[in-house]
């Protein structure tokens, strides 16, 4: 598997960056030039090469802001996500340096330098298309990993008061890279922005308190905000987006005041990981892994430690994430057309028939996905369970999740 993402200035043809993952060589300058040349040449002939398929992969050109062309090449991975990947890479570039600067592309050397700071996040994004890599922070490109814990409601109140104190608007709490709770109006943010913020928090692992200037690609692509991440406990971060004030030293104090009393709740919430579901929700032993997607909020909950203390058997568990992720990306995502990239020129024929359930069978597993209203479940079963039982169980899970009072998205 290999994935390469190249950014080139559309008019100048200057390479901005090229990142790769997997077993491929570094891309030569001449290759970049040729690739860019193909795109420019066809544009002269009133032609846009939308996508090129190769064996087990594809090559894609995408032009953003009329100034930057992203070229993506992927083989042997989750190639259907390439377009999504480029979209996220572009958003990441805006996130880092702002839309205006990206459009003007005046001081290209400086931009190259500035973009270097987003490489860790970029590499995270590349991990998401590698089927053999189980990324803790970025399993799915377009979904935000979450935990369902009963304490979420209490934590939200704390977050609300915290963001008010720092004159910020959006705040969230993450445990092990999973969103646990958010401030009330956090969902004003676009899912891409939220996703990038989560990746930012994850990439700044270790620092107790840190501020980063960021542009919100949808909300404010031209005016920078300040993202402040603060480590509360080990693997527990609180992130808030605020203006230039108050200064970091002041925020340090506010954090202490706000969160001192919530330490116990946070610790309780932490125990939910890695099961990620409240203990009141139980699963049948034949269920090997489960992925619940809240479609409008683009949040997902994944769990592979379902039967409580079964740690001895967790040998193949990273594999289970992997297997379930491939299922979701390849097939189950079709169940939710909302998750597809909206493009005018895309054939609308495909949306005509949206499946409501899908399953795969192999010798080792059975996968089943079902969607009802806003929720989608993908469940990994033992191969011995017959399909009609599988459907029944998935339905039960969906019922339980959607009615449980301990589930708080």
């Amino acid at each position, binding site marked *: 598997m290999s994935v390469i993402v190249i950014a080139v200035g559309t008019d100048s043809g200057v390479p901005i960056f090229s990142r790769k993952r997997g077993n491929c060589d570094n891309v030569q300058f001449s290759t970049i030039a040729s690739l860019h040349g193909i795109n420019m040449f066809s544009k002269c002939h*009133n032609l*846009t090469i939308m996508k*090129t398929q190769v064996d087990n992969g594809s*090559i894609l050109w995408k032009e953003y802001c009329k100034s930057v062309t992203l070229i993506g090449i992927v083989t042997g991975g989750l190639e259907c996500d390439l377009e999504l990947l480029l979209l996220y890479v572009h958003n990441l570039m805006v996130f880092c340096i702002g839309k205006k600067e990206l459009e003007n592309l005046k001081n290209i050397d400086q931009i190259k330098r500035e973009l270097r700071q987003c490489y860790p996040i970029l590499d995270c994004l590349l991990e998401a298309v590698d*089927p053999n890599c189980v990324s803790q922070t970025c399993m799915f490109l377009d979904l935000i990993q979450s935990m369902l814990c009963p304490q979420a409601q209490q934590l939200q109140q704390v977050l609300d008061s915290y963001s008010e104190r720092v004159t910020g608007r959006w705040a969230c709490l993450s445990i092990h890279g999973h969103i646990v709770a958010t401030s009330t109006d956090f969902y004003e943010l676009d899912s891409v922005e939220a996703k990038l913020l989560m990746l930012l928090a994850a990439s700044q692992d270790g620092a107790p308190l840190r501020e980063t200037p960021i542009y919100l690609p949808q909300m404010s692509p031209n005016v920078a905000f300040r993202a402040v991440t603060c480590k509360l406990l080990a693997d527990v971060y609180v992130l808030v987006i605020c203006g230039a004030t108050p200064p970091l030293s002041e925020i340090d104090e506010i954090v202490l005041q706000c969160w001192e009393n919530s330490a116990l709740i946070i610790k309780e919430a932490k125990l939910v990981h890695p099961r990620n579901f409240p203990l009141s929700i139980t699963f049948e032993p034949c269920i090997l892994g489960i992925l619940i997607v809240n479609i409008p909020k683009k949040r997902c909950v994944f769990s592979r430690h379902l039967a409580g203390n079964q740690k001895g058997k967790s040998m193949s568990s990273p594999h289970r994430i992997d297997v379930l992720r491939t299922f979701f990306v390849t097939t189950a995502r079709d169940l939710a057309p909302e998750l597809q990239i909206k493009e005018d020129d895309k054939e609308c024929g495909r949306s*005509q028939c949206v499946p409501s359930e*899908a*399953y795969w069978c192999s010798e080792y597993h059975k996968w089943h996905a079902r969607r009802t209203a806003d929720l989608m479940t993908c469940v990994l079963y033992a191969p011995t369970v017959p399909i009609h039982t599988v459907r029944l169980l998935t339905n039960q899970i969906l019922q339980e999740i959607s009615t449980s009072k301990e589930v708080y998205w």
Partner: protein
Amino acid sequence: MNNYKNRLPYESPCDSDNDWTESSEDSKCSDSESSVPEWDSDVAEDGELTYIKIKPGVEVSDDNHTALLDNCDTFKLRTDFKRSSTRRSTKGRIFKALKSKKARNKGINAAKKKDSEENNKIVVIQVSKSMIFTSDKNCQIEKLFGISLETHKDGKTLVVADFLPEAKPIYTPTVKLGYYLTKLNGIDVNTYNINNLLQRVIEDVENPRLMFQVVSEGLNIDIEKLLKSAPENSVTHILKESLCSILYICCNDVEFQNNDDKGVLYCYPRPLNNNFLYNTRGAYITLNHLAPKSLGTSEPLVSTLLHNSTLVNVAYKSHNGDLMLIAMPNSAIDVFCVKRIIQDIVRMLEFLYGSLKTCFTKQKNVDKLDGLFCRIFATLLFGNKRSGNFQEVIGAHAVSLPLEVKIQVDDAITELEAADYREWTDDVENFQRMYTVIGACLFYSGHLLCSHLQDNDLIEITSYLKLNGILQLSVQKDIEKLVLWREVYINEHRNQNKYCHEYRIPDGRWFLLIVGKGNFILATLMEAGGCTEDAIGVTPPSPFYVEECESCVELLFDVGLDRYLSAWFKSNTQPQLQLSPEKLTKQGRKKDISLKSDIIRSATLKLSKSQLDIKRRHNSSEHINTVDIQSAHSTSHHNLYSQWYSNKYRHSSVDVSYSEDSGSLKSTSEISDDRIMGRRADREQKSRRESSGSDSDWDKQDGSRSSNIDVSDIRKSLLSELDKVTVHRVTAGEENVLFHYINIESERGILLAPVSSVESGALYSYILNTFRTACKRIHELLQHGISFKKNHTPSVNKMLVGVKEHGLLFDVPHEVLNECGVKKYQEPYSFWVIGRVISEPEPRELYVCYHDSVPQDLTEIAYLLSYAG
């Protein structure tokens, strides 16, 4: 060539020379005027032949006179014991005729073409006699009717070129420019008689009536025409407009320099600088170089382009550094299909020319390629709305037939392949055949009935038939006579250097002979060389073999297979589909009890023995007998036969009829009534066989016996058997919940699916369309595992390799349900589309579509389906 003498030992001595032209001077051949095949003048210089004759517009019934006379022709030949000798001379005649008739040829074709267009729409306009239009050119037509005409390319038809301003309101919008003026006051009009007719109109008091033939250009592309002649500019133009294109570029440096068009060896449609693919070829060439060398991926397969707001798919095929590109609009052919279609095209070109390179570098081949690609694009785009379908691109669509019918078809083809020509010559030992039939396949109305070909050959021949629109022609039109002859390069021959086989195929030449009649298409692959005579130089089709194939098809007609099949295709029995999905409730029961009429009838199909017997062929006595009996039963058809026979062949027919025992005729009639009689007849046969001494004796007896059975009786029995056929159901549950299925054997290039003619209702077609789209998705996923098993390539995504079954559940949207009048029906209506790979005993893929109410086991369905035939 010296073998000629041996092969045809009873040839007159003066004819023993191996030069055809000389032999044509032999007096013998002038006697046998009728033995000249009607297609002989159509044989091209390189020996290839395309001869098509379509029955005009209206379905021709059996007692039609023209059809009958044609039959007689063939019959005469078949019963002619000395046929071989006439044949020999026929060959000479072809050659001579070729030289003299060349020029005349085209006119005839054009006339024939016109006939087939008769089913086009007709518009009649009455013009008031009192109106006189002012014509600048003082032209009679303009004055009288206010239109100006021009002559069509065929030199005969009159085409509307313009309307005078005053006359425009009379004609528009019903008559458009380009329509043909066919009749004036009911009389056929053409360039020759127009002036006379106009004179009559002037003298006539009545208001003149003009009859126009609607010519809807573009959407009414005539495959028949395309098969015969070079593409017209209008068709080429339409193809260019719809962004269809093919380009073959040679990327070799040396040739690149030498070529005027910068390495472009072939391009269609032309002119070059108007072809978008040609103009942007740089992009594809670069990408094709770059991808494997610098990016570490494979060569590109398909690019999706946006050109003038149209999505176009460009497929790549590299061949020894050369590149072939094919572009087709996404609206008609999506990425999934274009990937397969280019494979098909490549296979077909290699089949026809040996390799891609020779195909595009062969001298004087451009016109042929133009025609070929024009046909390919026209067939794919306009010919059939289903050409972008899943099952259309996957393989040859086979139908499962009842065993008895299958045996008959197989038998007929086996006999063709057996090449037992004992009745043509007494001197079998010295008879060297011209060709070995190495296999044949039979299609009916686009569906494969039977194949005796190697898998690869079948795949290639199917591609050829499909892409050239021949299969489509056989679906849409009732073919009177179709003969195609091509030299081909079979797969084994092309690849024999690559692999070392245990046995080697002879160093010969191969020919494809396609014969069509009605809705049947019989493709025969023949080998020259090895044990048969070597083919040297230009090899035109041999009338003998054409007739052999024709009579093979003819035999199927005699048995009544055509009628049987058309009934079978409509019958929806094996296995039965649920065609009225709106009647199913959520519990999988029928809503309306009165509609339970199609419950399973459990009678078994037992064909009377008579059918099995009738299929004997090549036994000349049989033919005569058959005819003899036909004459006894008086339909006009048979009467004519008998007349014809009584004139010329009375002697032989009388002979044979005397030799029959009178009782057998009686038993025949009983066979159709009573099955026990059939069995008794069988026993009788058996005992006769035991008593008969030698094998050959038995053969003769059998032949004469079978001939006792009246053909029309068998037809009846075949058709009546149809409602006794077990309705085969493969799904579990009280009601049939199966909507559709496709069973693919990709190795063999065959798929089994319900006959495409069965389609009904809005809900059903919605389900079917969803099924087809879903199948593409499922197929792509299952390919990971299939290709892994085949090539054992270290696959990149291990999970996908293991997937052997993939199912999708769809809910029918409320709009569709409302449309079908299922308004009260508020509960969701859902159905499954499931695909499964079955790797044992041979790899195949099964796709089924069924109602959600009853859970099904795919393995069981697969099992039941494989016993459907």
